[in-house]
């Protein structure tokens, strides 16, 4: 096994981190697959979102908005606002990965929270480990996320009425699970409560989907000044 000579303990550390992140995050795909079906998307549409959009929060958002009766435009807009951070990850990773041509297409598609996070976590191990972490995690999450999306979607299809199985509560719980680790200080917690209140207050008066995207203005207001 000539390959083994090149696998240093450093690379094993990176590979282990990549695999555990890929598998754990990929499991969330079950929740997304079920959410897509519960929101009224077909099996094909749900799976295509995981294959093509491949960004968890954006995917949950678009099925959430349309599931609540929102228009395609407000679903796309909400999902896209959540996807802006992937552009920032790309800018952070570009000087390290230096993608050219078709590799940039593939590399861009797997530029997400996890691939960027694992890659930056390997900084002390050198640039090769960072690249390895990015690819292993990006491709790993892609594979597991898509497999588990199919599992969740098929499971939800077999269940029938989403409410009878608690799927109607599992979707907001999944959003809360995505939100929770982002609440690290008082400003963020105040923003979260304010956004909940604003979206509920607007609900009776505007078309579905609008109350959600309107809260992006709150984020702008809260982030304008650099207080802690």
């Amino acid at each position, binding site marked *: 096994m000539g390959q083994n000579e090149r696998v240093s303990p450093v690379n094993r550390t990176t590979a282990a981190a990549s695999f555990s992140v890929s598998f754990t995050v990929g499991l969330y795909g079950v929740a997304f697959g079920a959410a897509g079906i519960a929101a009224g998307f077909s099996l094909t549409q749900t799976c295509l979102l995981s294959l*093509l959009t491949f960004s968890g929060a954006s995917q949950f958002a678009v099925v959430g908005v349309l599931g609540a009766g929102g228009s395609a435009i407000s679903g796309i807009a909400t999902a896209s606002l959540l996807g802006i951070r992937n552009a920032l990850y790309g800018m952070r990773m570009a000087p390290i990965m230096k993608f050219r041509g078709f590799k940039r297409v593939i590399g861009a598609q797997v530029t997400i929270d996890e691939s960027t996070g694992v890659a930056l976590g390997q900084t002390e191990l050198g640039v090769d480990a960072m690249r390895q972490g990015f690819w292993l995690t990006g491709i790993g999450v892609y594979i597991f996320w898509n497999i588990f999306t199919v599992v969740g979607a098929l499971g939800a299809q077999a269940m029938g009425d989403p409410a009878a199985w608690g799927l109607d509560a599992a979707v907001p719980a999944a959003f809360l699970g995505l939100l929770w680790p982002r609440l690290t200080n008082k400003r963020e917690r105040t923003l979260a409560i304010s956004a909940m209140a604003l979206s509920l207050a607007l609900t009776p008066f505007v078309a579905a989907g609008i109350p959600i995207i309107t809260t992006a203005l709150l984020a702008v207001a809260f982030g304008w000044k650099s207080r802690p």
Partner: protein
Amino acid sequence: MSAMWIAVLGTSAIAFALKYFGHSVPEKYLSHPRALRINTLIPIALLSALVAVQTLTDKTKLVFDQRLAGLAVAVIALTLKAPFPVVVIGSAAASAAIFHLR
């Protein structure tokens, strides 16, 4: 084309464009401190709104039903640092239980 298909394809196209754009422009664009701050806060606002709307509304009405019990269980699970699957399954179980009791 149905709204669902437009949403699937539109979301996917923009998601990829954003990712590709990031790899194609110098980092100095969009790295203004204010832009970075707001970008961190946008997911918090949108995810919070999604939690509230998905738990407490039905079309354009505010409703209190089994989903609120499910969300309460999710909050407890997250406070206890439970892993994601426990949070989701726990809240589904609580919501389903109330659904069948009503």
